[in-house]
């Protein structure tokens, strides 16, 4: 029960703080923002890796590896594209 309360409050607090911070982001940064948060949402990679710390069947390992690969694609691709976009914005101020 304590766990549930803790998890629920982590969700609520993160949502509210995230909401407040992201409300300040100007429209010109909305595409990089979405691309960056998209990379963050692939944090499921942690869960997929943790599947390899417990006993699983071969089939489950295959699914886990697939999840890791896709999440890694999402994390690396997301942060890299975001950086490329922000560099384009940057060019005129160097």
């Amino acid at each position, binding site marked *: 029960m304590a*766990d*549930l309360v*803790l*998890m629920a409050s*982590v*969700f609520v607090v*993160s*949502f509210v*703080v*995230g909401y407040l911070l*992201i409300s*300040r*982001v*100007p*429209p010109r*940064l*909305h*595409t*990089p*923002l*979405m*691309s*960056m*948060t*998209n*990379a*963050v*949402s*692939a*944090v*499921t990679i942690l*869960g997929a*890796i*943790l*599947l*390899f*710390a*417990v006993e*699983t069947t071969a089939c489950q390992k295959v*699914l*886990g590896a*697939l*999840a*890791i*690969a*896709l*999440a*890694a*694609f999402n*994390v*690396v691709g997301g*942060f*890299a594209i975001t*950086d490329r*976009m922000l*560099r*384009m*914005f*940057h060019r*005129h101020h160097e």
Partner: protein
Amino acid sequence: MNDPWHLLIDLAIILILLLGIWRFTTPQTARSGNFTAAFALLCALGVVFYGNSIHAPATVLLALLAGSALGSLVAVRVNMIQIPAMVAFQHGAGGIAAFLTSFVELARDSGNLAPVGQLSGVLGIVIGAATFSGSMVASAKLAGVTRQTPLILPWHNWILGATLVGICALGLLAGFASGPAVLYGALGLILLASVLGVVFAIRIGGADMPVLISFLNATAGLAASFCGIIIENRLLIACGATVAASGSILTHIMCQAMNRNLFRVLVAADLRPATAAVQVHESSAPPQVRAAAPEAGPPAGSTPIERAVQAVRSAQTVIVIPGYGMALAHAQFEVAKLADRVKQLGKELRFAIHPIAGRMPGHMHVLLAEAEVDSDLLFDLREINADFPRTDLVLIVGACDVVNPAAIHVQGTPISGMPILAAHEARQVLVFNMDEKPGYSGVANPLYADPKTILVLGDAKATLGQLLQVLA
């Protein structure tokens, strides 16, 4: 999970992530913000590897490397028009990762899971799978693989409703079942949720895509959060919740920019005319627009390009309004050159960007940044809309609905009440569009018939090229 050190480390990682988002206020600081967020995830990865003994480390590393290599390859190659399709595809990848992880956890451990964990695993599967299939449809539409127009099936809402009811029923069964029933229930849920995502996404198209892609952003975050609850990992919950917040905000902003509520965009899309053009009568145009004659009337009989050249030469203040048509014509580089030329001629030039210009929130800004337009020249609707009456010339490139005065003056159209850029208030208007057809909304644009408007029809890349040649 509950020892104080672990809690502190998780908290520190979440704070680093939030610090990264906090830096997203100017393009200059956002870059370090992006690095900070990436660093937070890297720390999280390090903690997971350090704190757990991983069986089959070679498999894990191989999967990590394969995904990362593919991700960086795509990131280098993609151009800014493809960004929305790419981001939608990545939402889908995140969705798969979330539902696969939830699924394996549920199948592996259903005997020992707390009821809350089991239920959130079911939710993670449903939201993840629906995000995956919906994102694939969105990505295919945005990449031009399938038609961009909404596809409405017969009995669309009934199919959607039936799928939802099926998911709820099966979800409750699987959520409270035990043994192999959970596994089969979960497999059925993946199938049903994938159908739901497709049915949901196929009828959204064109200018509604920014709403869909933002919405999928939020659901991808939610899927990660629920996946976090089943594996009892605070980082997943926190990161997922932050992403869900971000997606919700963007969804809300996009809906506001179109003056439509989320429900009407996502579920009741067949209420609007997708193909039949809504005719706007001549008399419905505002009288003050009719009365305002162009100050320097171009000689009759000249070609549209000649009139356009004269309009640009005689103007002192110019506002450019780009729309997605500009990107479709690959004309953003011509627009950038024209902007440079006009500024060289000593005129004041700015860009007015409507929030829904493009195919995802903020898309127009990155398209113009790719063409090396100075981002200081770009202004948002709220910042610039009051300046149109004082503006000599408005240059519209590939935009229609966002400058359609019918949104203000005509009731009962799909765009009525939508905030528009007040191009019709400028002294003269120059339109570089493919044709005079209405935009995505299907509402005819009375601005085209205005005597102060010069229509230069055809491929904007070619017509702007001609204009540039004369001005050079």
